[in-house]
């Protein structure tokens, strides 16, 4: 019986998995999962409400990105995305792969220096990187299909994530490295932050290489589809 009680809070995990799988709106799914987990652990409704409330407000820094929206909205109204696209399209020698690889490297280096909030999905991807990548992709000579446009945008977002994650872990003064050091210290293992940070470097390099190769493959795929479309036109003629 006590064994069963030990595993009962996992019902909350089950709610999340089922809710996401059934494509319910994620916000209520997550809140219900919290309530289920709390009830399964034998907490009272009052305690669960207080737990949800304090956890929620103590993480409100996660919402700060909305402050970028007014400035970016005003610029978009005056054609920022259109300009970013035209400008990149006019630069010779710059293609999708090179643009994305350059951004990936820059984002990793900035994150390694602890400058994680400098770029981001709201700050740089929507207003700058995604339209620039679209502009670079259109240099192949034919406009992107809606599917290709979405692929390029999604890949831009992915590039920002990968640059952030696999740079941040090398930074010694914040976040991951201090969490690791603090955890070990609690368990009687003393380490210097630099020892930990350096061992995140091999993965950072591997992440750069793998994602850069995938950016090149994306570029090739976009190019090939132009070739295929041109061939199809010739055959039709």
């Amino acid at each position, binding site marked *: 019986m006590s064994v069963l009680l030990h595993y009962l809070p996992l019902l909350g995990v089950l709610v999340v998995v089922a809710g996401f799988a059934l494509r319910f709106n994620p916000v209520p799914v997550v809140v219900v999962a919290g309530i289920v987990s709390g009830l399964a652990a034998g907490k009272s409704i009052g305690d669960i409400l207080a737990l*949800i409330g304090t956890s929620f407000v103590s993480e409100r820094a996660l919402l700060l990105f909305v402050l970028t929206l007014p400035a970016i909205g005003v610029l978009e109204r005056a054609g920022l995305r259109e300009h970013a696209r035209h400008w990149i399209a006019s630069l010779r020698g710059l293609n999708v792969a090179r643009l994305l690889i350059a951004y990936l490297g820059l984002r990793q280096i900035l994150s390694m220096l602890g400058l994680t909030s400098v770029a981001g999905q709201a700050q740089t991807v929507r207003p700058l990187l995604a339209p620039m990548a679209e502009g670079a992709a259109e240099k192949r000579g034919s406009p992107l299909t809606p599917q290709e446009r979405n692929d390029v945008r999604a890949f831009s977002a992915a590039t920002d*994530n990968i640059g952030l994650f696999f740079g941040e872990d090398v930074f010694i003064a914040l976040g991951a490295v201090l969490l690791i050091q603090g955890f070990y210290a609690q368990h009687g293992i003393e380490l210097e932050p630099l020892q930990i940070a350096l061992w995140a470097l091999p993965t950072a390099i591997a992440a750069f290489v793998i994602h850069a190769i995938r950016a090149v493959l994306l570029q090739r795929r976009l190019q090939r589809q132009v070739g295929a479309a041109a061939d199809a036109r010739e055959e039709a003629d």
Partner: protein
Amino acid sequence: MLRIEQAYWLMALFLAGAAILNLRDRRWSHAAFWGVLAMLVAGGKFVLAAAAAHDNLPAQLAGAGVIALAALSPRMSRGHLRERPADEREADAKKLRHRLLGPALLIPLVTLLVALFGDYLAFDGRRLFDAHQMTLTGLALACLVALVAALRVTRADPASGLVEGRRLLDTLGWAALLPLTLAALGGVFAATGVGTAVADLVRMLIPVHSALACVVAFGLGMVLFTVIMGNAFAAFPVLMAGIGIPLLIRLHGANPAILGAMGMVTGYCGTLFTPMAANYNIVPVALLELPNQGDVIRAQWKTGALLLVVNLALIYLLVFRF
């Protein structure tokens, strides 16, 4: 002194403004949603202070507010809000050209300057920036500076900051809220012992005398738990306490520095697979107006999967050697 709290007030003001605009358009659900969120953001410090003093009522009210937001979320249809016609935007873009990039780049630039030099700015011996979460305070300041610059460059009406900001906020809809809700769930999971239950399950399933089996279980456990929680930081203490320290370090003699660093980044691979990491994987779907919830994950899972294999190999080859 500039503090993170002021950034929260500014955010609450913006959210309240968005609520009022929606109220005028008779979009009741949106108005209520941003209104409740504005109150939660503005009252955050008070709630936490009261909870620390064992007064649970404000926290319970906040919890009720979160449930109200969850109930409103399905009614937050994302839909594209009316935007300025594309040809007018093109015309402005041709006229203003690079001047448009300046204010956009001010956001990262000012944030960067505050992060680098904020510690040295002081008047009469008092710091200009509070050291607590200084980079994020810098981000908020950068957004204000960029807004002023954007209004000057585009000669737009100052009210358009709120109007356009609200357009983007409504485009995001409930996706803006998901990161916070998930972080709150992480808090609940931690408080209800979900973590230890998962670690115990994993340990029941593996042959503990095999170093390879322990490495694989540790790595995949980090990924699985990160996928469930949406956050490698939450997975780390659980898997370390369950497998890392007792089995890999104490039993098999793994190097803790390597295991810690590489274990954490193995969890980061999991972040690339999961809708639970909403601010990275779901918010951009809304921001970039992509058609499917899974589009960003689809673009990045292959990088994550390859990196996961590389990582597991690196852990196995390195931790027992150094």
